[in-house]
């Protein structure tokens, strides 16, 4: 199924409710093949939920999501697993298997999904680790890695099966400037070299603007802004400007909604 603009991921009217909370309310997304697309927004806007929807771990309340022409929520478990073999996902924590070494972690998807001989698995793993600069760390256990290294190992694991796309969940959070720089470079380079499509969920404006071809800004369940990084920086929308420039108060209020302040101080309290 070829779409007009060759989109790898397409969401139409995507709606998702978590209990009575509305996480997404009819959003449309087009993620172009071969590009790096960033999904940005304040914490708690359901950015990670979006990745889970794309990966089929949860089903939308309404609307459709197509990945490479397949409507994800309608796939059977078997078809979904087939599709996931072509998707890589980088979790915020890395999600490395703690009882396996770095080498075995990267080898994990290869051993699970292919019948390659061990010598070839070894070569592939070494190549992936070399690509993220951690070939020397192959014998370490995940507990011996720094946060940045763990994420790079997870990245090597995510590309082990040469997927068509990679989803990054908050890849820059909690990284020192050097590992941040390394990750920014890796994400961009891998996208070019391997011909991937990358989706980055992030609230780190500077880093995401640096590598993204296109950015969606989400807030309160809707897309409030979209465009190339330059377009967004000059956006007319006050909201988008507040977000991109990190101002503490604006359309997004500093205060969580609450009753009248003076009244609450004077009231006797509920006394739990």
């Amino acid at each position, binding site marked *: 199924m070829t779409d007009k603009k060759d989109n790898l991921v397409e969401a139409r009217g995507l709606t998702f409710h978590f209990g009575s909370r509305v996480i997404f309310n009819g959003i449309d997304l087009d993620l172009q093949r071969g590009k790096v697309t960033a999904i940005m927004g304040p914490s708690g806007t359901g950015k990670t939920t979006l990745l889970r929807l794309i*990966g089929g*771990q949860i089903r939308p309340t309404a609307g459709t999501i197509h990945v490479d022409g397949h409507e994800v929520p309608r796939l059977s478990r078997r078809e979904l*697993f*087939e599709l*996931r*073999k072509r*998707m890589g*996902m980088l*979790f*915020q*924590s890395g*999600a*490395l*298997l*703690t009882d396996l070494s770095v080498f075995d972690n990267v080898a*994990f*998807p290869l051993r*699970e*999904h292919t019948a390659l001989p061990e010598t070839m698995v070894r070569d592939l793993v070494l190549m992936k680790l070399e690509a993220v600069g951690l070939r020397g760390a192959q014998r370490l256990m995940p507990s011996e890695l720094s946060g940045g290294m763990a994420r790079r190992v*997870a990245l090597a*694991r995510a590309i082990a099966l040469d997927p068509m796309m990679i989803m990054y969940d908050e890849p820059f959070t909690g990284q020192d400037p050097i590992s941040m720089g390394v990750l920014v470079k890796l994400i961009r380079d891998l996208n070019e070299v391997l011909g991937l499509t990358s989706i980055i969920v992030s609230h780190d404006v500077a880093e995401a603007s640096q590598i993204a071809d296109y950015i969606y800004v989400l807030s309160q369940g809707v897309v409030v802004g979209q465009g190339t990084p330059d377009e967004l920086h000059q956006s007319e929308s006050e909201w988008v400007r507040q977000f991109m420039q990190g101002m503490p108060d604006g359309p997004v209020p500093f205060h969580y909604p609450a009753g009248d302040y003076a009244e609450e101080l004077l009231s006797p309290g509920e006394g739990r």
Partner: protein
Amino acid sequence: MNTFQQLGHNALTAFQRLGRAHLFLFAVLAGAPSLLPRLRLLIQQLFSVGVLSLVIIVVAGLFVGMVLGLQGYNTLVDFGAEESLGVMVALSLVRELGPVVAALLFAGRAGSALTAEIGLMKATEQLSGMEMMAVDPLKRVVAPRFVAGVLSMPLLAAIFSAVGVMGGYFVGVGLLGVDEGAFWSQMQSRVDFDEDIMNGVIKSIVFGVVVTWIAVFEGYDAVPTSAGVSRATTRTVVYASLAVLGLDFVLTALMFGEV
């Protein structure tokens, strides 16, 4: 009214959970055959679930047997029946204490470890990560642990009973002077293979299924936070222990009730 609402809500939650637990069990059983080509996974788990529980089982079995020997002797000697000590020790162990105490220890040692391990894997997104790598955690993580638990339990219970008998022998024959020949020959003639030993084995198989099921389900269903995992671990030990004791009564009534 609120109390009633709460009561109803709690009941519904409990039944929902029970339903989830059963669906989970079916999914795990359906995933179990996929272990056949990958016995290595099972062997690893047999080691950590079974072999690593051996020390506590052997030590506990020895002491339980020794206490049985001591108490049994003191009672039997009043009737001049201390030569039946072997029978008493063996029957107590094979019918009841072996399966039950071994299962309780197993719940505390291996069950809690299983829950904590799976719960932490969930909390650290390892299970989710596997799913995104198109690997089913039920097959890769839960099934080997479940099968290992079910296979280990009867063996551990048998070892518990065997060591317990030795404990009773040391105390009864070694320390208190019961006649060695009578100790063994009475045991041999009075302990029936079908009636006593097999019923004990059946008990321990049932306990193995229930304890391991509770342990892996609690881990898989745990709230993925440190508090959630700690609560799940506690629940495993409490529920598994109660289930073992309750089921033991039911099984005993079914097996020996009409005699």
